[in-house]
């Protein structure tokens, strides 16, 4: 009898613990738990976080040393080391002016990563609001917004970026704007399409039937249900944005010349591709690794945010 009691008591406790555990976990905590199970996505996230940490570290170093290290290792030309291959002293070798590529890559992280991520976030907010309004209310509002978006879409993104930068002048903020504006219609279209597919689902009607208002329905019912494609698209677009920044730098209207932007290193290396492969390969690999990590994180998030794929 007593044995039974103790075993029952033992059974009860863990069950309770599990139950309260379930209750306290929200949607995001749950998504995080599922995200961690995806190895590749976790690796991608680690890489991205590492790059963000590197970028922040260089900013702090510059601030603490008044750009001493930046001037000494990143900017200063040393023509005796011109196009030097990888060695112990310069692990990734040197570029056409004898500057250490590793240092230039490390100091270049901030441009690609910050401008890439911030510009897409900005585009996502603008495009998201426009797309959600268009998709949810349809009718003339939808027509108005989407026709304007179509006009934007008809201009190649690079041409628009060049136009914006030439009109407003070079500079980080203008560069950010020129990268982000062409992405707005792309994201708006995707948000609109997902919102339209979700807003006619029965649970939205059911929410109305218990007296929910438009704002509540949009934020709690419609948007969480169409996050998946939006997140994947946004993470892919960060990659595109990083490439666009590189392209603009090549044209001389992106990040200004001595600054070690990844794309401009890559583009400068084009001339020396036959003699010094490492100058183009290594920045190329870094860009690829960054974009790949972003895509992996996007894929992982998509799976993690879908409660149906739980466990």
């Amino acid at each position, binding site marked *: 009898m007593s044995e039974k009691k103790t075993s029952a008591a033992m059974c009860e406790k863990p069950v309770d613990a599990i139950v309260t555990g379930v209750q306290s976990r929200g949607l995001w905590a749950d998504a995080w738990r599922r995200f961690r199970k995806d190895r590749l996505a976790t690796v991608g996230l680690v890489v991205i976080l590492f790059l963000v940490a590197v970028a922040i570290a260089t900013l702090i170093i510059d601030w603490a040393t008044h750009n001493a290290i930046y001037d000494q290792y990143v900017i200063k030309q040393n023509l005796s080391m011109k196009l030097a291959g990888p060695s112990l002293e310069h692990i990734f070798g040197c570029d056409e002016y004898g500057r250490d590529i590793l240092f230039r890559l490390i100091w270049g992280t901030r441009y690609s990563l910050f401008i890439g991520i911030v510009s897409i976030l900005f585009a996502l907010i603008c495009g998201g609001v426009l797309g959600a309004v268009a998709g949810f209310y349809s009718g003339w509002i939808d027509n108005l917004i989407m026709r304007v978006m179509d006009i934007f879409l008809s201009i190649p993104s690079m041409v628009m970026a060049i136009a914006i930068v030439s009109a407003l002048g070079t500079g980080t903020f203008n560069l950010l704007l020129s990268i982000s504006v062409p992405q707005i219609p792309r994201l708006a279209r995707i948000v609109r399409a997902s919102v339209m597919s979700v807003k006619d689902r029965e649970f939205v009607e059911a929410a109305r039937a218990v007296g929910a208002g438009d704002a*509540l329905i949009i934020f709690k019912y419609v948007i969480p249900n169409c996050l998946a494609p939006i997140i994947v698209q946004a993470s892919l677009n960060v990659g595109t944005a990083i490439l666009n920044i590189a392209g603009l730098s090549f044209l001389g209207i992106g990040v200004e010349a001595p600054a070690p932007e990844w794309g401009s290193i890559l583009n400068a290396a084009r001339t020396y591709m036959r003699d010094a492969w490492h100058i183009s390969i290594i920045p190329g690999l870094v860009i690829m690794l960054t974009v790949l990590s972003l895509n992996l994180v996007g894929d992982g998030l998509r799976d993690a945010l879908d409660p149906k794929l739980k466990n």
Partner: protein
Amino acid sequence: MAFLEIKDLQVDYATDEGVVHALNHVDLELHQGETLGLVGETGASKTTMAKCIMRLLPQRTGRIHSGKIIYQDQDLLQASDQEMRKIRGAHIAMIFQDPMTSLNPVLTVGEQIAEAVENHRHCSKAEAMRRAEEMLELVGIPAQRVGEYPHQFSGGMKQRVVIAIALACDPKLLIADEPTTALDVTIQAQVLEMMQALKEKLNTSMLLITHDLGVVAQNCDHVAVIYAGEIVEYGTVRDVFKRMSHPYTRGLFTSIPQVNADVKRLIPIPGMMPDPTQLPAGCKFCTRCQFADDRCRREHPGLYPVEGIHTARCFRLEKGGSLT
């Protein structure tokens, strides 16, 4: 006085193929605490009626031509969107046909019930959550499952959750739109039994939309048979089942298999429902009715009394005669 009164309701859908006459001059009454069954075949505008009461008709195509829906001395068709939002859920709640799609897949069931509560009551999140647990227990789901997502529940359980959401704010009227169609027979019986018990406990009135006459017999006090957007027969369940007076009602009954009768084939109603964009001029049922004559094709019959409140829309009852 009636608790909910529908007067002369006429609803159209404007589609590319023409104007669909969904509801044609419908009058209906529902009394406090009673269950009214609304029976009819697919496309008879049963759901349109429910959505009309909730004012959830599709905005682009649905059009209410005329009529009144009076609930507690207020015409719902004249109410503002703001007023309507307060009525939905708190006064009139609806249970949808398919529990698989009527729950939000990204919110836990607890959050969804709590939200229905928060829409109408100014209370903290924790209180709403407690209410959600209470409601789950009420519909027979352990309160521990409050933090689980809809996909972790079976069909019958999901319908219970939907019912819990509908009842969370103690509505006075519950509209159940084929609440058991998507469920298998065993679960169907459980859910209906539970709804009946809850209805009595909370003193809710109910409009039960179904095409299953067995469900009506077990759960309803009154029944209205609807055909092509028109009430063709109305009465207490007992009267209508005992003395079905409209040929369509009769057709419905003869097309149900009976356990104790040995018949080789069921007798279906011949033909199809008329195209709702081109309804016949006279009696809407005349194209399928074995008793139809010239007058049926020309004139539109009114509702004739059979006995007491029992009425039917057929010329054969004009002089107090019976169908046979």
